[in-house]
């Protein structure tokens, strides 16, 4: 296999990120110009690796929850018996999106206390819409001859869903999940304002002590994670689409 430039670039960035998380002090010379008055250059109020893993965990749990609920909802309202709930569920999910995440945090704290919980709630609500909309698009724009054939060969409603509709809608659903994950990776940083352990801590610590180096470190890790995950999920979608002939070989 020939390694192409984009692949090399991806591997390089991933390697750089891992090294930075394991041995942040090696990078001290790079960040030093950003600090003044002998302030610490590398974040020192906890392990960057631990914060990164916790950050990812929060996003993963919230997105998993949002995926399950959004896809289930989309399936429900595209069945004959659930069609009348389509407008209602659309507006509910839209509300979830228009509500600013900060406001959700503020409202959730009195109810569930400080920490990871309010962050999870905010991210969950925020992640619903893209996944729901995409699942809905995926499930309602299937080629009619194919859904017709699925009935024609004698599949039950459940078999049609599992064997034909979901697999065919999968690339579009995945695109929704990808969007949701990327938004939530960034949004999760504000969870640190309510004491959730995320990379937001690094940024907030930097802002409070006027330490640009900290802010940059937190921001860079989040940015690189978002880009890499976005890229990985895109590749997965392309792979599946190509399998189904929905996308021509490039």
């Amino acid at each position, binding site marked *: 296999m020939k390694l192409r430039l984009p692949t090399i670039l991806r591997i390089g960035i991933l390697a750089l990120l891992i090294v930075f998380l394991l041995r942040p002090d090696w990078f001290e010379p790079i960040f030093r110009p950003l600090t003044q008055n002998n302030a610490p250059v590398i974040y020192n109020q906890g392990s960057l690796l631990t914060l990164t893993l916790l950050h990812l965990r929060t996003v993963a749990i919230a997105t998993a929850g949002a995926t399950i609920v959004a896809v289930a909802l989309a399936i429900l309202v595209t069945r004959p018996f659930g069609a009348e709930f389509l407008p209602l569920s659309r507006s509910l999910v839209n509300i979830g999106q228009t509500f600013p995440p900060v406001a959700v945090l503020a409202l959730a704290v009195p109810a569930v206390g400080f920490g990871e919980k309010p962050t999870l709630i905010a991210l969950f609500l925020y992640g619903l819409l893209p996944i729901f909309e995409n699942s809905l698009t995926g499930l309602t724009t299937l*080629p009619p*001859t*194919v859904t*017709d*054939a*699925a*009935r*024609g*060969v*004698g*599949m*039950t409603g459940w*078999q049609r869903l599992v064997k*034909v509709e979901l*697999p*065919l809608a999968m690339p579009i659903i995945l695109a929704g999940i990808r969007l949701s994950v990327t938004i939530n990776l960034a949004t999760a940083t504000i969870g640190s304002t309510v004491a959730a352990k995320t990379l937001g801590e690094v940024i907030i610590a930097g802002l409070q002590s006027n330490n640009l180096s900290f802010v940059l470190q937190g921001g860079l890790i989040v940015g690189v994670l978002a880009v890499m995950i976005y890229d990985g999920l895109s590749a997965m979608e392309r792979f599946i689409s190509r*399998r*189904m*002939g*929905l996308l021509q070989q490039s």
Partner: protein
Amino acid sequence: MIEIENITKRYGAVTVVNDVSLVVQPRTITVIVGTSGSGKTTLMRMINRLVEPTAGVIKLDGEDNRTLPGYELRRRIGYAIQGHGLFPHRTVAQNIAVVPELLGWDKAKIDARVRELLALFQLDPETFGPRYPHELSGGQQQRIGVARALAAEPNVLLMDEPFGALDPVIRSKAQEDLLAIQKRFGTTIILVTHDMEEAIHLGHKIAVMDGGNLLQYATPAEILANPATDFVATLVGTGDRPFRFLSLSPAGDAVEPGTAEGEAIPASATQRDALAELLWSGRPALPVVNEAGKAIGRVTVDGLVKRASRPAA
């Protein structure tokens, strides 16, 4: 046997199929012809209940087709959909295996059946089995669509314009394949087309539809000789009528005693082909040979022309 009794389908105030009754004999091919929008597909889809009729009954071998749940009924009836409808995310082999899998056949039996069908349609199982539908030509996709419909050895096969997208050469090849398969398995076939030529060639009986009404249900010879309405006559095409009539019978039926010079024609060729050959080569008579290649007599221009004239009603 398929008995369609007073079937009507309305969508709102629009009647799409209007009080249609007809009986399809087992092991025959019935072709439904008509212009676009005449209700052919709708009539056919009421047989396997993809469409539920507004009124009327359809019986399969004497049993109301509503006795079984729709999905079980459809597993027993082969259906080759208008525009093939292959599953794009499944390989060719998986597409063919769909109905046997739903019926719970064991894996070895399914594999054997898939190979058998691919071979039957002259597609190499090793090459084509693992391919995805988008890696096939239109003609190949169409054949896989028919193979999928035949996979569970159904007694009844519904085909909706199966040859619509094919070029003339592949099309006539596919028609011959279909006739051979029908003979071999004794399948009862209902086929929709808007091509009268195809209907005359394939059908034991032809049902002519227009605006939801069944105008005529008869043998090709009867439809050619006595079209029930002007519409049927137009569909048959008055100019081509004598030739279509000749295309119904083999040259063997028109054999007269005697001999003739030149290249012979097989007895199984249609009389139309025989006449065409006579006219083209400018000969008055052609020798006819049987399957063994033995001369059995001759056909003459005069004899064929007499046969092409309108039979007495």
